[in-house]
């Protein structure tokens, strides 16, 4: 796979991550910004280490990518970060939150649902691939063990995985605090190929129209400009808002 194709996919992924962060901010009533993002083709043996120390205990929120695409999306965070997020959602002091209790676990699941759906919606909207997510699962275990089952599923089809990772920052009262949340997106090889093909077609179309690579994301453009970009899309089912991807809610 050429690095050029990955590079053309990157602006779309960054926008989708920003959308995920914005959705999480709106849901939790706190300001969250994406501070870094990475897009790497990683040998399977190295996927767990890309999620952090394999033995370190973490909280994972998992959804499967379904619809016209297949893959896995996982939010991984240390327990204090999960407590902080659940506390913000439940208007409780983070220190008093036990994330294995039903209510905090449910709040985290919803946070995962909202952010993952937002990510998928933007990706699906731009590429014309119907991307859905399953109901989320929340688990607390070793980071390596959480990632293991996903890697095994991808390993059935290949020896490498595209790992999309990011970190969030929490802005509170003007101060920025790092929220080390790893957002891992691992599409199946077939879905990855579909996404890359369509993202590259969009990038080429945007370039031909003198637009910046970032402008290829339809939902960030005014309707009139968006139309010119959507001409290169394949036909796909669209809802009332013009979005192709849907949440599982």
């Amino acid at each position, binding site marked *: 796979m050429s690095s050029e194709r990955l590079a053309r996919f990157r602006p779309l992924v960054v926008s989708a991550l920003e959308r995920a962060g914005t959705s999480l901010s709106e849901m939790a009533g706190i300001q969250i910004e994406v501070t870094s993002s990475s897009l790497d083709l990683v040998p399977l043996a190295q996927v767990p280490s890309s999620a952090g120390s394999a033995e370190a205990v973490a909280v994972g929120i998992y959804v499967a990518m379904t619809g016209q695409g297949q893959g896995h999306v996982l939010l991984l965070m240390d327990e204090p970060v999960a407590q902080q997020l659940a506390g913000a959602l439940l208007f409780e002091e983070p220190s008093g939150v036990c994330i294995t209790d039903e209510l905090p676990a449910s709040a985290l699941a919803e946070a995962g649902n909202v952010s993952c759906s937002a990510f998928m919606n933007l990706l699906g909207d731009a590429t014309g691939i119907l991307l859905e997510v399953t109901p989320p699962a929340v688990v607390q275990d070793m980071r*390596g*063990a959480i990632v293991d089952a*996903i*890697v*095994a599923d991808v390993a059935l089809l290949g020896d490498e995985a595209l790992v999309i990772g990011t970190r969030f920052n929490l802005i509170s009262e003007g101060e920025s605090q790092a929220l080390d949340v790893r957002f891992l997106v691992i599409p199946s090889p077939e879905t990855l190929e579909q996404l890359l093909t369509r993202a590259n077609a969009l990038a080429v179309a945007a370039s031909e129209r003198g637009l910046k690579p970032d402008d290829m994301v339809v939902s960030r453009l005014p309707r009139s400009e968006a139309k010119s970009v959507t001409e290169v899309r394949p036909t796909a089912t669209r809802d009332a808002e013009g979005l192709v991807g849907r949440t599982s809610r």
Partner: protein
Amino acid sequence: MTIAAIPQGQSIPVGLGEVAVQKVDSAEPLVAHGLGSCIALCLFDPVNKVAGLAHVVLPGSDPQNAPNGKFAGSALPALLQAMARLGGASDPRRLQARLAGGAHVLAIGGTGSLPRIGDKNAEAVKAALAAASVPVMAEDCGGGKGRTVWFHPRDNGRIRVRTVGGTEVQF
């Protein structure tokens, strides 16, 4: 039984699909960190004091039928080959096996559930060992929690297993 933890950096990590071997005079144990559905297949040669660990990911066999630690059906030949290089027995019946892992950590309902690869891994590894007449001395497979496994040839084939929230055991 609680055992003193081995400090980080003083062990040899064995990643997904990898195979590693050690002799009894080595200072560092082999370790498979954060096993979920994967299996740590640990083989010990009690005569030549050679230990080998395969980090098995999938229940099938290598597509080219080559020795390959990634697959349950191909990990045994990969371990035998690597152990033989350190003077280990070539006859699998002279070895002892211990295994751990095969958990179902991401247990979710609905149609999006990941397949129970952990169970299939454990079954496939045990079937491969039985076919080669390798005795299984002990195992800790299944459940819903991840594990870390240490294996040192000085421990006479015994392995250490740690789970989240649980004690560390040796068997």
